[in-house]
Structure formats: C-alpha cells, structure tokens
C-alpha cells in the first residue's frame, strides 16, 4: 500500500468516528508526507489542524494506521501549505485603469504570463523561429542549443522566447527557468562585482535548466559582462541546459562582441523574425480584438493593416485607441473617424524623417559625430558610414545627387552617385551591410 492509499484508508475509517463538520474542517488537505521506520509524517494545511490532530485525534489516527500497517508506531504532524496552492485562472475583464505590470511577472522565472504560444500568431514571416521555438519547448537542451532569435523592434521576439519558457514550465514543471533582459543581467554583474559576490552570482545562473536572455546586443562593448556570460554559457551548454537568446540583429552584425561569444551564438540555431505580411497583420488584429473583446469591422481592420506595416506593437496601439474611442462614445467608429484617430500613428514616420535625422542616426549608429560625417575626412571608418548615409538619403528621401553632395559639406554630385552605386552593389553580397542598413532604417522609422 502506498502512502496515498494508506491515508485514504485511514480517512475512510475515521469519518465514521467523528462528525461530518469536524471531518471536513480538520482533515481537509491532509496527506502522508513520508513513512519511515514506523514513523508517519502527516502534512496538514495550518497550525490549527496540527494542534487539533496532535491533541485530539492522534490516538485514533495512530490506532487506525497501526491496524492497517503493524510497523507504524508513531505519527507526527507538520504544517505544509505550499502543496495546496491554487493556480490563478481567473482573467479579469480589461478596464482602462492601468496596473503595475511588475506584479504580473512570475518572481521565480521572470516570465510574463501574457506571452504564450497560444496567443502567438504564426505567419510566413515567423514560421521558422516559431517552429524552432516549439521544438525547443518540447525538448529543451537537446535540439537547437543555443537558440538565437533576431529581428526588428515590435515583431514579437520577446513574446516568442517567453512563450518557450511558459511552455517548458507546463511540459516540465520541475525545470528551473529564468528569463532576463540583458540590461538586468549587466547590472547584476556590475553589482556583484561591487559587492565581491560574483561567484555566488554565477552559481545562481548555473542552476537554471533554461536560461532566456533578451536583447543580447546590449552586451556589446561590456567586456567584463561578456566574460562572465561566456563562463555561464559554457557551464550551461556543457550540461545540456537550454540557452535562448534574442537580439535585434544576427550575431555577425553585433559589433564589439568577442569572437568566442559570437561563434558560440552561431553554434546552435539562428532564426530571424521578419516583417509580417498583410494577411498576418490581419490575423494579428483579429486575435487582439478578440482578446480585448471589441467588435471592429473587417473593413476597418484592413485599413489599419494596410497602413501600419512594420511594427506589431503599433498595430496593437492603433487597436487600443480604437477600442477606447468606441467605449467612450458608445458607438462603432466608421472609416473617417479611424483615419482621424490613427493619423498620428500612420503619418508620423513621413513627418519625422529628414536628411538631418538620417545623418544623425547614421552617425550615432557607427558611434561617430555628425560633423565627422560632413567633414572632408577620407578615413575609412568615416567614409563608409558617409556613403551609407548618402545611400539612405537617395533611397529613402529621393534627394537629388547634387543636393546630397551639398548636405555633406559641398561634395561633388559624382561622389554621391559613386557612394550610392557602391553601397547598392555591396548590399547584394554583404549580409552584414544589409543588416546594418535594416537596423538604421528601423531606428529612422521608430
């Protein structure tokens, strides 16, 4: 007879000896925790039950136990209420009152319950990362280790990698999972160096079965953090613990990243999340509007999906605005109102970008000063960013070549033509360049 059956047999007999109310009150949520050498440890939900069973029912419990199993000589009671914790399942209707987001996050894993596979919309643009993520969640540590997911802002990287954590937790409740944005990781390293506790910091990370680090590109240039991370990475990797990373660009394109780390990142599976196509944008809008319980016609969703192309977060923002409008005015919005409501969201990119902005962002991206780009330097590390800036002016703003030349300190229009053709040509062969330009563009349109 195992412990469970034994306790059931005890309960079955005891219920005849005491009143229904007492039985329900004192024996609810009790069980045998352990049985060893004639000593039975009974787990009870609180101190009141403990006192009561010890003082009032110990004799009858022990006698019943003894009748069932002659070896049992003693029973002890211990309070153990973690066992009976109920899982929160209730979802509250959405209201406009904002909440502290920090409280929704699980303290052990850092995962936000909002992000699951169930509410992740799959389309051609993210099929590969989704499939890889799904495979990892089924079998963490065994396939695709590390899993490296990259892609632009607001395309669902965080959602996807957190969904892996969520799924692993459901599939393997015993596995220790940790999600951490890399900024937190960096400040963790910095603090532990300051407090001379770097060893315990590392030990803590080594015990995780699944380690998820978001926005790993922020590690660039932080040599000490990279070193510590390298050691943690190796330990986990050697023990077949799953590592999941995300970044806004592929490992190759992360500058100031140590080669040994880069090669490790590239050792597993790399998958990129692209911009969603129209159909997927529609699907996302439909899922989100259902989640928010708002009723919006297809015509309007189509309008939003056609006009917001590059960022899922913005899609959601537009939907929120619409939902708020409908709630306040208590009527469905028509297309004219939508156009008005979403004016800022849709038009803003066009308004924001101008030649100065491009030069500024390119300079920032390559860690240069704006005036370096404009000055007449022929240094290689300046010439190339300058050419990229010229290329962008031509392609994004359709500036004329002479105008581009003028913007860069009165250069000849042939210089501008040369720059644009050179970059266009190189883009065809050089993957890093493609990524860099993609990233710069993202920052432009953010």
């Amino acid at each position, binding site marked *: 007879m195992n412990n469970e059956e034994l306790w059931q047999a005890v309960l079955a007999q005891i219920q005849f000896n005491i009143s229904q*109310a007492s039985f329900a*009150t004192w024996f609810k949520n009790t069980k045998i925790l352990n049985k060893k050498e004639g000593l039975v440890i009974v787990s009870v939900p609180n101190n009141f039950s403990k006192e009561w069973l010890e003082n009032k029912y110990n004799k009858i419990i022990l006698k019943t136990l003894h009748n069932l199993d002659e070896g049992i000589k003693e029973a002890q009671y211990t309070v153990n209420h973690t066992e009976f*914790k109920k899982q929160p399942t209730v979802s*509250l209707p959405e209201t406009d009152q904002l*909440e502290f987001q920090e*409280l929704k996050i699980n303290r052990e894993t850092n995962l936000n319950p909002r992000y699951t596979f169930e509410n992740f919309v799959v389309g051609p643009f993210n099929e590969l990362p989704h499939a890889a993520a799904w495979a990892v969640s089924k079998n963490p540590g065994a396939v695709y280790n590390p899993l490296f997911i990259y892609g632009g802002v607001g395309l669902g990287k965080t959602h996807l990698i957190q969904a892996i954590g969520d799924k692993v937790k459901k599939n393997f409740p015993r596995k220790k999972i940790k999600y951490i944005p890399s900024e937190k990781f960096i400040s963790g390293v910095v603090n532990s160096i300051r407090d001379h506790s770097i060893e315990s910091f590392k030990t803590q990370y080594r015990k995780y079965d699944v380690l998820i680090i978001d926005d790993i590109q922020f590690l660039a240039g932080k040599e000490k953090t990279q070193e510590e991370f390298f050691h943690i990475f190796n330990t986990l990797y050697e023990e077949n613990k799953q590592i999941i990373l995300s970044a806004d660009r592929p490992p190759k394109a992360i500058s100031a990243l140590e080669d040994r780390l880069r090669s490790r990142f590239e050792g597993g599976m790399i998958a990129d999340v692209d911009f969603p196509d129209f159909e997927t944008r529609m699907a996302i809008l439909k899922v989100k509007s259902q989640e928010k319980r708002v009723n919006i016609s297809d015509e309007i969703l189509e309008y939003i999906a056609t006009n917001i192309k590059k960022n899922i977060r913005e899609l959601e923002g537009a939907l929120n605005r619409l939902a708020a409008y409908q709630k*306040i005015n208590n009527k469905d919005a028509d297309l004219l109102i939508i156009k008005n409501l979403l004016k800022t969201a849709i038009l803003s990119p066009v308004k924001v970008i101008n030649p100065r902005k491009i030069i500024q962002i390119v300079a920032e991206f390559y860690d240069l000063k704006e005036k370096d780009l404009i000055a007449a330097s022929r240094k290689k590390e300046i010439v190339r960013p300058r050419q990229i800036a010229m290329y962008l002016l031509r392609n994004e703003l359709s500036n004329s070549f002479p105008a581009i030349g003028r913007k860069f300190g009165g250069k000849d229009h042939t210089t501008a033509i040369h720059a644009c053709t050179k970059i266009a040509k190189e883009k065809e062969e050089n993957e890093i360049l493609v990524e860099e330009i993609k990233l710069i563009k993202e920052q432009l349109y953010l």
Partner: protein
Amino acid sequence: MNLIILKENLKRGLDIVERITGKNLTLPILNNVLISVKKNLLKLSTTDLEVGINYWTLTKTEKEGKITVPAKLILSLVNSLPNKKITLEEKDQVLNINCDNYNVKIKGQSPDDFPIIPKTETTDFIEINSIPFYKGISQVVEFSSLNQTKPEISGIYFNLQKNALKIVATDSFRLAEKTLYFKDGMDIKKETSFIIPQRTARELINITSEREDKLKMYLSSSQVLFELSFPEGNQPQIQLVSRLIEGKYPNYQEIIPQKYETQVVVSRDELISQIKTTSLFSGKTNEIKINVNVNKNKMELFAQTPEIGENKSEILVKAEGKNTETSFNFKFLLDGLTNIKSDEVIFGINGIEGPAILKPVGDTSYLYVVMPIKGN
C-alpha cells in the same frame, strides 16, 4: 467554574475577541468564545482558524473551569447589563450570569470541541512600540488586494531590517509603503520578511490602538504571534496568532518611480477638497483629468459626464518638469491623500501611462504610488 468580575473588564475583553467570530458555517463552535478560569485570571479565546485571539483579565475566582458560549450573544448581553459586578457560574454546560437584578442562563457547548489556538514555536521575539506600529499599519492596510488569485498581494508585507521596518500593501493599481525607523536599531540577526493576511492586520490595529506599550512579535515559519503584556508584569494580556501567507512578495521596489516627468507641490487640504468637488462629475468610471501647466504653476482638475455636466477647477502649485494631462481614478487619489498627514504633498506624475506618486513634504517615511487611467 465560578467567578466574580467587573462588567467593564469582561466587556473590554469580549469586545476584542468577538470580532473574529461568526464567519464560519461548517463548524458552528467557531461562533463561540471559550471562557476559562485558572487561578485569578479569566481567559477569553476565539478563532476563525486563520486568526486566533486570547485575552486575559483579572477576576476573583471561586472555582476553576471552562465553557464555550456564543460570542455575539454574550457580548450583547454584557453590554446591556448595569455597570456592576458580574458572577459567572458554569453548571452542566450552562452558563449562569448574575448581575444586579438580572439572572441569565446561556446554553453552552463543550470546551473539548473548541479548536486549540496554536502556541508559539519559538521563544525569540522582537519588541516594537505599539503606537507607531498600529499607525503605520493603518496607513497601508486598505490597499491590499481583495482578489484571492494572487495570495501574496492579498496580505500586508513586512520587511524588518536592523534600522527600519517597512510595511507595504498593493492591489496592483496602487501601492503604499510605510517605513518605521528605529532609533536604537533592532536586535535581529538578518533581514526578515513575512506577509500577514489583511484580516490579521485589521485585528492587530484593533488590539493595539488603545494602548501605548511594547508589542512582542514571535515569528516562525508558518505563523506569527503578537503579544501585549499586563502593565504590571510578564503575564500576557492579549495574544493574536495568525497564519502567514505563503509565497514571495513581488519585488515591489521596482514599482516605485525614482524620477518624475512632472512634479507638483500642492496644499493637501486644497487638493482634497477640489478632487471631491470635481469627482461629482466623474461618472461611473471615477475618472478625473489632471492638467499641469508648469510655466503658469497651475494645476487644473477636470471631469465630465455627458448626462450630468462638468467641472473645471484650478489650484496654484509649485510645478517643475513637463506639462502633462493625465487621468486618474479620484478615489485612488483620495485614498492616498487621506493617509498623508503633512500640510503639503508632492505629486509626481510620469506621463499618461506611468506610475504617479504621492508623498508628504518633509517626511520620507510614507509613499503612495498610483497608476493612471488610460487616457485617450
């Protein structure tokens, strides 16, 4: 059992222990108070199996013994008796009460069926001054979550350090933190934290509010015991035992904003009265809009409901940072303001979706964080 006691003493004890009875339907004996007499002390005990209270008072004892009777009934009865000596006598599970011209018989229940209130598992205790303690708890107790799906935040969080005790509650829309600073430092080995149910906190306020005394706190892994002694010696007078809420309290410090986009210093009374006026027009959503114009040092409160009307009012303030237009639930603002005791308050706002803060000017011991209502 047979004893003589002053009405006032019996009433005071019953007042304290009666409050937690009468909420359990499955076990009727929990509606009762256990009256027991040993030597010259009368002990009253009640419990709802989450909290237990013991209360001792002096009596002239003729014969030791014990009985349980319905707590609400005996309290109502004692309240209506004249302010004189009362004789309590138990015979065959019936309690005879004699006082002046009254002769009462209450049918009791066997004391053997009454739950045993758990004793402390530890002899280590921490001593705290009761007055600042109960005042501190009452400044946060209302803000714990009523929603049981997140048990951790349904309670009040205590964080005890060498030099300070932090008392925190949040319902995920707002958060209050009170810090009690110890002048002499606490004799504790390391920082300890625990969460007590909101009920327990309320009872704690109830038992400690009247008296300036040292409150002893015995903490063990699954329960806590608070104890006040008789002024004359070590004999405990009131004991409150409670279970602790299992789980880790959220890392609440991350919620407290350290910087504000807009900072306003404003008279507390004026702000309260304007919020109250404006709130008449806030409708079902309780939403009022707060506009801060930094250049003009002006704060404007606005609320409107199409069917009722609208109100706009202005206060002169000291403002810094950016202009802002943020909506709040007026009740949440009032809840925070009424727990602040200073003449002027700091109101820090972080845009339309960031956490805002209310805190007294010149007092770092209290703060109240509140989330806005999503603006349009």
